[in-house]
């Protein structure tokens, strides 16, 4: 499922920015409600992030699931660590843990 070339690409992509979101569609035009929800949370917190559209590349779309052992998109990575999918991000946002995590990581986030 995860060939070396794809793994290397993912390694490089999640290291390219502090906050990277694998999603369906783009941050400006999400093509799935779950991806849109996470974009909404990040935007609301004013956290800059890079969106990677898995719909543009099947090897990334399947590869990222194997990479994190996580069956769904979106997937949020902060400082190369997998933080979670839509449910976890939403829950962490609601409890305030997400803002706290960004601040601990030295990433500016407006307290919600």
């Amino acid at each position, binding site marked *: 499922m995860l060939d070396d070339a794809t793994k290397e690409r993912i390694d490089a992509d999640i290291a390219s920015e502090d906050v990277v979101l694998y999603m369906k569609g783009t941050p400006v035009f999400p093509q799935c409600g779950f991806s849109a929800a996470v974009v909404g949370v990040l935007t609301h917190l004013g956290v800059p992030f890079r969106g990677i559209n898995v719909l543009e590349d099947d090897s990334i779309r399947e590869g990222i*699931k194997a990479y994190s*052992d*996580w069956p769904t998109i979106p997937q949020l990575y902060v400082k190369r660590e997998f*933080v*979670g*999918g*839509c449910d*976890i991000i939403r*829950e962490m946002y609601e409890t305030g843990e997400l803002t706290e995590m960004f601040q601990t990581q030295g990433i500016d986030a407006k307290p919600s």
Partner: protein
Amino acid sequence: MAMQASEIESLIRAAFPDATITIEDLRGDGDHYACNVVSSAFVGKTRVQQHQMVYQALGGRMGGELHALALQTSTPKGG
């Protein structure tokens, strides 16, 4: 292809016999569920690990025939 709530519950139940499981069919279409699992098996695990355990119990159906399962996991409160 849709899945029955009872089918989802029995797969989770098999992996977490002690769990309190609540499943809600969000749209009544057998395709969009919200599921809450409370189990002592989650003690000491991160959220990501807890969700991975449930996905494992669902045996690869998540993201496939099970399109949308909003998942919430927690450990039993109190003693």
